């Protein structure tokens, strides 16, 4: 077994008495698509926020290629090659689609005190941003204001931004929710292509069919704990998982 790209060790986040994430151990291997599943409120997004540095964990560690990154600020974690999308899309609404991606292209300049003063409309950067837009299929909308785009395109725009940042790992938070059937199919092929480029993907997904179809492995969270992990088929038939989603047998319909 290859060494894990991302390793969560006993990761916990408590908000007062609420254990949103409680001692989760998880390994993401290089080059795989790992689906993170679970019913509402299971702690999936909190897990993402812990990895991307939005919150510091209450306990436990996050390691990227063996190096501890928990407690780092979000921009520092982004600098290390982890790109993420948001469950509720956060486009830079008054900028164009191209400018949104260009803002991500600046990641190599933002830490420098001198290079932040160089112009951002250079041909090289624009071409790089266009190439990313091409990959997610937004190239023809490059000059549209991001605030005017429908949800499906905004989700792809977020993936485009995350792709620039996430040279190592991509965290996709419910990128399929609220999309029409055709849009889901298009986005699925986008994500498959990303994986073919050698980028590791950790995705949160509510849509079971999509998650099972895309993921190489899945992990299921419930009430902040990991209750199952493995290949999609095995997890699908796991009793504890079925119980978490549908309730316990023999307790009546209300469960």
């Amino acid at each position: 077994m290859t060494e894990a790209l991302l390793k969560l060790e006993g990761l916990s986040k408590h908000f007062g008495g609420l254990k949103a994430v409680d001692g989760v151990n998880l390994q993401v291997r290089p080059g795989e698509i790992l689906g993170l599943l679970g019913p509402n409120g299971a702690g999936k997004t909190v897990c993402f926020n812990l990895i991307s540095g939005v919150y510091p964990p209450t306990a436990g560690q996050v390691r990227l290629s063996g190096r501890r990154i928990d407690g780092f600020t979000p921009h520092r974690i982004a600098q290390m090659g982890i790109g993420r999308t948001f469950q509720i899309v956060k486009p830079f609404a008054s900028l164009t689609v191209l400018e949104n991606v260009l803002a991500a292209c600046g990641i190599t300049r933002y830490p420098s005190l001198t290079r932040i003063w160089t112009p951002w409309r250079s041909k090289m950067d624009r071409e790089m941003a266009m190439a990313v837009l091409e990959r997610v299929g937004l190239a023809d909308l490059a000059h549209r204001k991001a605030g005017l785009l429908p949800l499906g395109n905004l989700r792809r725009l977020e993936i485009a931004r995350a792709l620039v940042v996430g040279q190592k790992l991509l965290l996709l938070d419910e990128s399929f929710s609220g999309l029409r059937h055709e849009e889901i199919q298009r986005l699925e092929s986008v994500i498959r292509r990303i994986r073919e480029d050698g980028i590791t993907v950790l995705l949160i997904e509510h849509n079971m069919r999509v998650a099972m179809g895309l993921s190489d492995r899945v992990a299921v969270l419930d009430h902040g704990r990991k209750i199952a992990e493995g290949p999609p088929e095995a997890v699908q038939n796991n009793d504890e998982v079925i119980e978490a989603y549908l309730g316990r047998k023999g307790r009546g319909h209300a469960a």
Partner: protein
Amino acid sequence: MSAYVITIATLIAIYAIVACGLNIIVGYAGQISLGHAAFFGIGAYTAALFATKAELSFWYALPCVLIISGLVGLLLGLPSLRVRHDFLAITTIGINFIVEAMFLYIPFFGGALGIGGIPRITLFGLPLKGIGFFWLCTGFLSLSVAACWWFTRCWAGLACFALREEEEAAAGLGISPVRFKLLAFVAGTAMAGLGGALYAHYMRFISATDFSFPVSITLLSMVVVGGMGTLWGPVLGTLILSALPELFRPLVDYRILFTTTLLLLMIRFQPGGLLGETGFIRSRVAVRSRRGRP
């Protein structure tokens, strides 16, 4: 040109520099500031003290004025990292009152009497007055607008735009909110300091009330009327808000009423400002250019 017109034009140029600085903070980086007059005042008092107590020429004092205003801006920009939106507005109002009170009550700053006897700026041995001073201010205004133009086109500017729109998403792209917000504060307050230094040497007498809270409101109105986040908006806004009360001289007592009414009308009908995205002027130009196309 009559001395009266030159005076008004000079003050417009000075206020436009200060408004450009405020635009960097409010328009580009999206951090609301209702205390910009404080930094205008810090620049003016620093320049006045250098000129009267240290007897340093304007040109030698200017870099120090810019650095001091910028450093104070850095210090007072720190609240923007903790509080946002309405709370930041209230905090910056507080900063304005504290700075004004320091000018007023600390004897070193001249107290209620202010600082007088500030010498004129000399250029090549000649003291600048009247039209000469106006051209000096216009020159500095051009430099300020050029600096703003550069800011919108470099990565630092793009980082600020991203922070203004969605802070969390911007941080996810490797943009440090701390670094770029403070950068905007330093750039904006240094520009206010420049305006202040020019103001001190032009009026040759300054007192705390020149930098009180209503001045901050007027400055913010100038930026909003012209168009937040646009390049020429602050200049246009300053022109309108300074020239109109002069043109309707009998109404000068109602200046604050006029400013606030205009501000409310702008927020209702032209939230992006006259030069803004959906602004009256830009849409006119857009319609005309569309008609012009074959």
